[in-house]
């Protein structure tokens, strides 16, 4: 029974469930599915007046639904990633496993390799902080992340979201294939 609860899902199960988030949030309250907006709301809440550009001056209370959604994401992670965590390592392709070896990263059970969470290594701090900085800046500048553009934007046939999604992948392919190996060597 525990096995059933901890095994990962195939893409054709997970994918449609992800896609259903778009109509679900529209039905719940005409809300647009988009997680990165929460980073903006968090800034609107936390920034003192003296350091608060106009971009963060709005009524964040109207977006409490999204903050609750983000809190739910944490709970979901607790459930599926901790309580019912998959004890097996990810079933990557053979080529992917070889690439890991090239990066000096091992295939362990879990969602993130321990090598990338080893805070004794300065390069890990660099990767985590740089990644965060780029994600935060980029999602606001681009007006959305995977949920807002790749899922919602494409589902609602919006051309800007196609441009954004292509750009996401261009950036990701570049950093995963060139910058990450450079940093990890």
């Amino acid at each position: 029974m525990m096995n059933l609860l901890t095994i990962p899902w195939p893409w054709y199960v997970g994918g449609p469930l992800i896609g259903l988030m778009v109509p679900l949030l529209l039905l719940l309250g005409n809300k647009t599915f988009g997680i990165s907006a929460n980073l903006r709301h968090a800034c609107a809440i936390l920034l003192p007046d003296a350091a608060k550009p106009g971009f963060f001056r709005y009524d964040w209370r109207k977006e409490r639904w999204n903050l609750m959604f983000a809190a739910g994401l944490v709970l979901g992670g607790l459930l599926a990633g901790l309580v019912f965590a998959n004890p097996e390592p990810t079933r990557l392709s053979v080529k992917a496993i070889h690439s890991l070896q090239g990066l000096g990263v091992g295939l362990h059970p879990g969602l993130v390799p321990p090598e990338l969470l080893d805070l004794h290594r300065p390069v890990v701090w660099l990767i985590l902080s740089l990644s965060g900085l780029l994600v935060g800046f980029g999602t606001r500048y681009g007006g959305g992340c995977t949920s807002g553009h790749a899922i919602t934007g494409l589902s609602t046939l919006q051309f800007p979201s196609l441009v954004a999604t292509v750009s996401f992948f261009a950036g990701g392919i570049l950093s995963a294939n060139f910058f990450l190996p450079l940093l990890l060597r």
Partner: protein
Amino acid sequence: MTYSPTTSADQTRSFPSVLSLLSYLLAGTFFGVVLVKSEAASWYRIQEMFRFQSFHMYGLIGSAVLTGMLTTWLLRRFQARALTGQTIHVQSKDPGLPHYVFGGLTFGLGWGLAGVCPGPIFTLLGSGVWAMLIVLLFALIGTWLYGVLRDHLPH
């Protein structure tokens, strides 16, 4: 300051809104579970995706978009209403193109390093990956930085 007692109208407005907020909490919990179970929150899977070494993530995103397209079309076709009573209306994205390209590239660069986009940051935190607090902190700094530099950037 004048004292204004809550009317029964105020009370009925706050009660459904608590339920409403809880429904978003539940939706988020569901999505967090999906992110983990589908391995969209997995650094390993994201690296595999950016090296085109498996169909998994493409099948995931592709079937998600197809499902989203079909269901959104159905909502529009039947002029569905939200639980709140409004007719469902999809917001248009902002005009311009440069900001989608530059912003998208920047986000992608970050995504390819730590293998996380915003959803997985929260979900991984919940699963006990405390190092995600570093990613989150810097994501907030990056967000603030955008707010500061916004008027000087091409959109």
